[in-house]
């Protein structure tokens, strides 16, 4: 059950953008007063985060045109904008009004009474006209300024000064050449230039927000998730329910997408709780320690890099790689959502093939796409563990020739993780420690500082021969590693395709982590009887119904 959802701070917005909004709130004038009202900053943040800034840009372009032309084209340059927004209180309604009123004394003035024309009491205030050029006029009222270019009219109320100044303050950090560009493009130009500038501004903002906000479609999807999981929390059942209910929404048709998004949502939620806990801790509140769970020791594993395992060295075939890719991406969540993982492995794969069938207009009977059941999937995972172990075994003799120390570490790990050798792991550590201390002592006596890999390997192989003679379990272990290498003819495991030691070390690390995760999943599925035929039949029925609604609706 999720709690404190309402207390989420700002997720989905880059730290930089958040800082920029904060900066706008903190921006002060020389007298220490805040330059922008909280309302203006909030409004601007809303416009930007909701990606609803096209009208604002259009208004802003007109506004800047007015500022640039208020004192006549000849006298105007980029300094007009700079002085208006940052020196002459253009951020303020009164300052803005004063600027346009003052401009009148510099321009050719014409006074009009518009009350009769407009027939509006509010408009009966005196309007003064700044004739900028032929067919270009600024009408200054007490409360607003109106731009007229040929038939085009645009009015800006002086109360908009603060938010428009706020936009300018933010924009200049995003587009440093803004003043120059605006001046060059607007000065002496007409409506088309104003519109073009508005479009240009939108493009600049769009590009910037692309780096600092999540895409709009993704935001929409997450809002959907938030609303759904708010009441029921994220678990395997609610993920399935979400997919069933929202499969016709954009981006929610594929079960695999829904699972990934739900996990991402859950992670974000947890981060928020962690942050809240950390804050409480700082404030001295007691935090109830979480009870020990199967996930505790996995917390440090974020994701596992399996890119190399398909090639350098080649451990997996395509099918095996597909099977482990989800758990490599989400190691902890693959355990937490084991049931969902099984559904993903069976039904998401089937869904992908169905989609391909629909695309090719060769849709088969839906049941034919489900090639395996949960027991088969569990068996597949057990096979992957076996493949991993064989690959790890085969790496030992290779690493012995490349890097003895890494070979020793690998052998210890293999010993620890293989049931029949587990009891000997302590002895193995003792043997290796003894070997290294003896080796160093020997070097010290001989006063040789040359601890080359070659010398070390020679000494290590000698020691290994002795250990093999002394300990039958050690002999068995080494024989097993050699047999594994002999049986493996994939890339990276033959003489012709040997790789750097780093490749093996990295691959071994990933394989050991994957083994850890898979073993936990296998344990959990067995414990909770997840892979039972009843479970599979129920899920198959659900998925087939949903697939038929999604993909063979028309035929019905």
């Amino acid at each position, binding site marked *: 059950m999720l709690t404190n959802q309402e207390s989420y701070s700002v*997720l*989905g917005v880059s730290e*930089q953008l958040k800082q*920029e909004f904060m900066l706008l709130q903190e921006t002060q004038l020389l007298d220490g007063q805040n330059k922008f009202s909280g309302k203006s900053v*909030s409004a601007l943040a809303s416009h930007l985060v909701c990606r609803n800034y096209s009208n604002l840009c259009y208004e802003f372009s007109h506004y800047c045109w007015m500022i640039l032309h208020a004192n006549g084209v000849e006298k105007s340059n980029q300094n007009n904008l*700079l002085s208006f927004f940052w*020196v002459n209180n253009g951020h303020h309604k009164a300052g803005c009004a004063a600027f346009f009123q003052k401009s009148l004394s510099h321009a050719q003035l014409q006074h009009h009474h518009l009350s009769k024309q407009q027939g509006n009491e509010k408009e009966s205030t005196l309007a003064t006209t700044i004739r900028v050029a032929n067919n270009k006029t600024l009408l200054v009222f007490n409360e607003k300024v109106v731009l007229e270019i040929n038939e085009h009219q645009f009015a800006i109320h002086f109360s908009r000064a603060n938010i428009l100044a706020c936009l300018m*303050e933010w924009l200049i950090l995003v587009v440093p050449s803004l003043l120059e560009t605006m001046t060059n493009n607007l000065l002496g130009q007409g409506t088309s230039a104003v519109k073009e500038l508005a479009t240009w501004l939108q493009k600049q903002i769009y590009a910037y927000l692309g780096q600092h*906000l999540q895409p709009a479609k993704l935001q929409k999807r997450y809002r959907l998730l938030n609303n759904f999981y708010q009441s029921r929390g994220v678990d395997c059942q609610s993920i399935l329910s979400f997919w069933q209910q929202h499969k016709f929404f954009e981006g929610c048709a594929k079960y695999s997408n829904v699972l990934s998004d739900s996990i991402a949502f859950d992670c974000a939620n947890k981060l928020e709780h962690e942050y809240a806990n950390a804050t409480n801790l700082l404030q001295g509140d007691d935090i109830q320690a979480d009870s020990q769970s199967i996930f505790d020791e996995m917390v440090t594993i974020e994701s596992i890099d399996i890119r190399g395992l398909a090639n350098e060295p080649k451990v997996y075939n395509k099918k095996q790689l597909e099977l482990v890719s989800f758990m490599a991406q989400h190691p902890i969540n693959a355990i937490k959502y084991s049931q969902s993982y099984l559904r993903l492995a069976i039904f998401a794969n089937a869904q992908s093939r169905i989609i391909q069938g629909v695309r090719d207009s060769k849709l088969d009977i839906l049941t034919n796409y489900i090639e395996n059941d949960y027991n088969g999937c569990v068996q597949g995972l057990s096979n992957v563990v076996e493949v991993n172990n064989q690959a790890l075994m085969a790496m030992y003799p290779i690493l012995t020739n490349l890097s003895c120390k890494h070979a020793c570490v690998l052998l210890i790990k293999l010993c620890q993780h293989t049931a029949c050798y587990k009891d000997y792991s302590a002895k193995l550590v003792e043997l290796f420690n003894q070997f290294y201390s003896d080796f160093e002592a020997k070097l010290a006596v001989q006063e040789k500082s040359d601890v080359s890999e070659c010398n070390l390997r020679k000494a290590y192989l000698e020691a290994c021969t002795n250990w093999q003679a002394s300990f039958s379990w050690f002999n068995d272990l080494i024989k097993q590693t050699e047999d594994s290498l002999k049986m493996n003819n994939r890339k990276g495991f033959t003489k012709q395709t040997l790789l750097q030691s780093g490749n093996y070390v990295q691959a071994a690390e990933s394989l050991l982590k994957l083994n850890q995760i898979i073993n936990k999943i296998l344990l959990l599925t067995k414990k909770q009887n997840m892979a039972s035929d009843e479970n599979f039949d129920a899920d198959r029925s659900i998925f087939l119904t949903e697939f038929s609604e999604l993909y063979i609706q028309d035929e019905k």
Partner: protein
Amino acid sequence: MNYSKSAFISISQLNALVNLPMPAKSADKSQSNILSMQDIVNTVIAPHLPASNRHLKIINRSILLRKLFKTALDANASFYSPAQIAASSELKHNQKQTDQNFNSSVVRIGPGFEIKFIQANATNTELYAILKLDEYNAKQEELGVFMHCQWQEKFYMLHLQYTSNGKFQTLIDQNFAMFEACFDNSTHWFVN
């Protein structure tokens, strides 16, 4: 990109975003690399404020902020009284002299002002900067004159106190970052 992990926006989050709590005034703003344009313009038009020195250090750390500062500096020079004149470095306005005691001096002449840098001692560890303005006002007599200089892409500020007859003076130690800038032809000087 510095996103929050697995980021998303919900309506409640959006509300939290647009109703940001007013942050405590950042005492640690000097650690930040971000300044508003208003801060930059304030640094130019009010160099006497303590914040200006702090902001100048931040400005010098960022190419973007330096560009904006230069824009503000150029604009400011033409905004105010004739005493506030920007001068760019031109060779014809540079005069290097050496007196009988082998103390060298450099004179920079711009429209409305002349600044002279004179070696204060034989070891060349200090130098006097003497500014002469054609026109000055009472406020400048009281607060002194602030000059900005742009040297090797960075900006420095010099505060000169009024002495007499339109002259303003200060002593520059060789440990001061702009010591070398005083003798460099490529240094741009701006009088506030």
